[in-house]
Structures are given as C-alpha cells and as structure tokens.
C-alpha cells in the first residue's frame, strides 16, 4: 500500500493524460494499468477560456484521483496561479508542481520550485514537486511543507531511463520515510522495474505509454514491471559478485577445481 498525503493507494503507477491517440485509448490505457492517479496539464488546455470543456469532463468521469500539474510554467508566480486555477477546477488540494527552468531539457528551476512550494504549502495545497535528485533541494522542499518528492530519472519525454542511479540510491537512503516517485524520463517497463528495485514508491509516466504503438498494452506492461520491481525489492535482492557461484552443491565432488 502506498500513502500519499493521507490517501491510501494500491497502484504504484501514476499516468499522464497528454498525447494519446484519442481519449478513448487514454481511458482504456488507464483502466488497463490499474492506475489510481492521473495527472492533467492545466496550462495549455485552458487557453484563455478558464475551462477545458468536455476533455476535463472525461478526466473527471474516470473515477480516479486527479493530480493537476503546472506543466509549462516558467516562473513561481505562474505556477502558483495555475495551481489555484486547478484547485477550483478539480476541487482538489493536490498539485504536481512543475517550474521549468530550461526550455530545451525541461529541467526544473529548483529555486523557483522551492519558492512556489513554500507559497502553495502555506496556502493549504498538498504539493507533489517535480525536482532533480539534488538532496539539498529535496531538504528545502520538505522544509517548505512537501510530504512527497518526485525526482526525475532523466529529462521529460527522453525515454532514457535512470541516467544517474547512484543519485537516486542516495536520495532513497537520505529520505527513507518520504514517499519518492520517479517522475519523467522513463521509456521502457524495465526502467520502471529498475526504479522499484531501488526502493522507490511509485513512478509517473506519460509519453512512454501515450506514445507507444499500443498504449493499452504498454500500460499493462508497465503495471506488471512495477509490480515485479516492487516485489523484488521487498523480497531482498542479491548483491552482485565478481565470481561465479554455482547453484548446485560442489562438496563431495572428486575435484574442487
């Protein structure tokens, strides 16, 4: 069981809702994955109208928790404003806080992120910050009031997987009691399994599923990988060794080569 801001969940997969071939395929993928949280971008969809129309009705009708995000925001002020709009629209205090610092890599601007997190937490929001694996930034986000951290694995949409596993291992070790969700950069089910084998609590995906040739089958594949990785972590993984270790007993054989 996974607990995020007092909400208990059985699924460890969070899915984005952007760029599926159609809302029907999106819905089928969400169902197939068993995901209980979907993220929704508020930035572009509202395009001045203050409402997303029927697409938001589809999202609300999914019967899962909605985690609005501030994707595409480049300043703390913009992100705070978007979060407040999202609270009204989806009647939730949850917000996935994204403040983009670099247009090309979509790397978070961690300074503005901490600033926005402080303001939103003080205002009663339950913030899911999209951050790097930097420990100092992570500490500042926790001080600001965040009770979940979402480090990236690699740049958004890059499908590169865990480019710096050592940093993610150290983050897990530093914050043993904080729910850690890998956000961004995963491309394959094996990436998700790897994240879970490091002891992460959940992963958030969008492009890896939405952009697959068969998003529904891919959603299912990720759910299975997450389950395998999570179970493997708790079953106790073997440490790698430099030498072969035969699995059949050798004592009693004529030669001990």
């Amino acid at each position, binding site marked *: 069981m996974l607990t995020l801001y007092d909400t208990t969940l059985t699924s460890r997969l969070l899915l984005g809702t952007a760029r599926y071939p159609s809302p029907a395929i999106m819905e089928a993928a969400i169902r197939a994955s068993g995901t209980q949280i979907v993220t929704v971008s508020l930035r572009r969809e509202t*395009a*001045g109208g203050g*409402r997303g*129309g029927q697409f938001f009705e*589809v999202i609300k009708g999914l019967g899962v928790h909605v985690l609005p995000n501030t994707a595409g925001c480049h300043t703390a002020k913009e992100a705070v404003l978007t979060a407040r709009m999202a609270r009204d629209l989806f009647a939730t205090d949850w917000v996935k806080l994204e403040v983009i610092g670099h247009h090309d890599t979509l790397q978070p601007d961690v300074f503005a992120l901490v600033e926005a997190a402080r303001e939103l937490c003080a205002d009663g929001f339950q913030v899911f910050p999209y951050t790097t694996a930097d420990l100092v930034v992570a500490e500042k986000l926790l001080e600001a009031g965040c009770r979940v951290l979402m480090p990236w694995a690699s740049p958004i949409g890059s499908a590169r997987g865990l480019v710096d596993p050592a940093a993610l291992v150290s983050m897990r070790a530093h914050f043993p009691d904080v729910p850690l969700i890998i956000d961004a950069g995963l491309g394959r089910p094996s990436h998700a399994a790897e994240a879970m084998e490091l002891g992460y609590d959940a992963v958030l995906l969008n492009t890896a599923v939405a952009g697959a*040739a068969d998003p529904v089958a891919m959603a299912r594949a990720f759910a299975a990988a997450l389950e395998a990785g999570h179970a493997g972590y708790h079953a106790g993984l073997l440490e790698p060794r430099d030498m072969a270790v035969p699995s059949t007993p050798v004592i009693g054989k004529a030669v001990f080569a």
Partner: protein
Amino acid sequence: MNILIKGAGVAGLTAAFALTRRGYSVTLLDPNAPGMGASHYAGGMLAPWCEGETAPQVVIEAGIEAIGWWDEVLPGLVERKGTLVVAPARDQSELERFARRTTRHQWLDEAAIAELEPALAGRFRRGLFFADEAHLDPRAALAGLADAMLRMGVRLVAQADEGDFARIIDCTGRSAIKRGSGLRGVRGEMLYLKTYEIALSRPVRLLHPRIPLYVVPRDNGRFMVGATMIESEHDGPVSARSLMELLNAAYALHPAFGEAEVIETGTGIRPAYADNIPRLAGSGRHLSINGLYRHGFLMAPALAEELADRLQAEPQRRSAIA
C-alpha cells in the same frame, strides 16, 4: 424525398453533393456562408498514410478513397504530389518512429529531398516521402462544391422548418458539442504566411516531439502553417505561445519564412468523438455526420457516400419485408 442538411461545412457540403447527385432534393441550412466553420481553417492535406501514425485503419481506408472523390468532383483542384516528412537533426528519432508507425513511404537522402523540393536543398539529411498522398486548397474546394450544388438545384437557406423534411441530417460540427453528445472540441490554431522567396510543391511535415507541424503551399506565394491540437472548446484568438511555435516550425523548415508576411491567423474547434473517429450516427428521421476531428477532408466523402447508400437502401428493405 426532401432532405434537410444542417451545417454547410465540409461534412454538410459533401453530404449535400452526394445526395443531390443521387437524385434527392436537398436543402442546406446554415446561418453563415458555406465553409466558414472549422473547415475554413483546414490544412486540406489528403494524407491517409501519414495520418495512420495515430489514426486507425478505417480512417486510412476512407482517406485513400477521398483523394479520388475530390479529384472526380472538382477536377483540377487536387494536387497529387505526395507529402514530405522531415525532422530537425536533433529529432531524428521522431522520423524513425514516424516511419515505423506508417506505411507506403520511402526514405529519401539529401539529394532526393533536393530533387523533390529544391528550396529545401541541404537543409535535411533524410526524409520520408509519401508519394501517393495529395492535397487541395480547402477554401477553394468548399467554394467549388457549393457552386456545383447550387447549379444542381440545392437550396441554401438560413432558416428552415424541420417539419417540412423527411430526413434531417445534422452536420453542425462543433455546435453539436454538449454534455452527453459524446463530442468534444479540439482547438486548432493556424496561420497564413506570404512570401515569394521560397516555393514548395507539396505539404511538408516537420516532426517534433511536442509540436509536430506542417506547411502547405497555396497559390500566390501563400503558405498555410498549422496546426495546434489543444483539448479545449475555447475559440478565442491564437495564443502568443502557439503563434511562436507555428512560426518557429516554419522558420526551422526554411529561414526564408522569417521574412514572410503573416497575412492571417485563425482558430477552429474540431468536433471529435472519444475515439477520434468520424462517423455517421443516428437512426430513422434524424441522422448526423460529425466528429470529423482532424480528418474532415479525408473522411467527409466516405461518410457522405455512406449516408447516400443508407438512404437508398431504406425503401428496398421496406419492400423486401412487405
């Protein structure tokens, strides 16, 4: 049989044409001039294989038919010159992905691209060519269709009493979007550039992981650049961000577009069903063709003929039962 078609966009006009051609008496209802809804902002690409990147087989098949349909109905308007697909050097993996998801294309190298589109010589190392695709000017096509129909005796009216008609075909597109209709709106923004510094013979698609865009050449130095895809029913003017992205794409395709004049920007709301597949729906007296999404010119002919087939089949079925 008297038939009322509501909505004179690409769906209504093609339906009116198909029915009139089979001898039905058609009245076309629209308070606005024909072709002034979302169809006005269409790209006019008849690119079924490219659309197959995300669209299902039914759209591809109908789209293949559409090329011949438009060519037959409006001779001289359809340009059968194919589609060129390119990607910036850093997004080559997008080109690989696009090739994997589509069929009926061939890989081009730099020299072959230059041969096809001399203006793009030296700009892209590789590209995909969909030789069997076509394009048309959607505004000219709809005006041509409206003219042809008026000559065939279709009445174009701004008001009508539904009680006077045996069948009512709703082709009102976005006006039919409401809760429970199964339809939603997908906002699309586009712009027209004008320059004589560059010439293209066919639509060029520029792939990008977030904002894939296309440039379609029209006459008199005009180029249509489109189109954004935003889940929204808001039809206000193009946003600064979208304008920037559209212009960036045109500029990435060729810097000469940086010197072009922006002669028009526009926003249309594409009506779409949850599966993004356009369809003929309803039964009895009330039918509809809607949800054309981004496949208006590609799917409307097949749906119009399907409608005509269905109406023609009705009395036969009745007599068979009798």
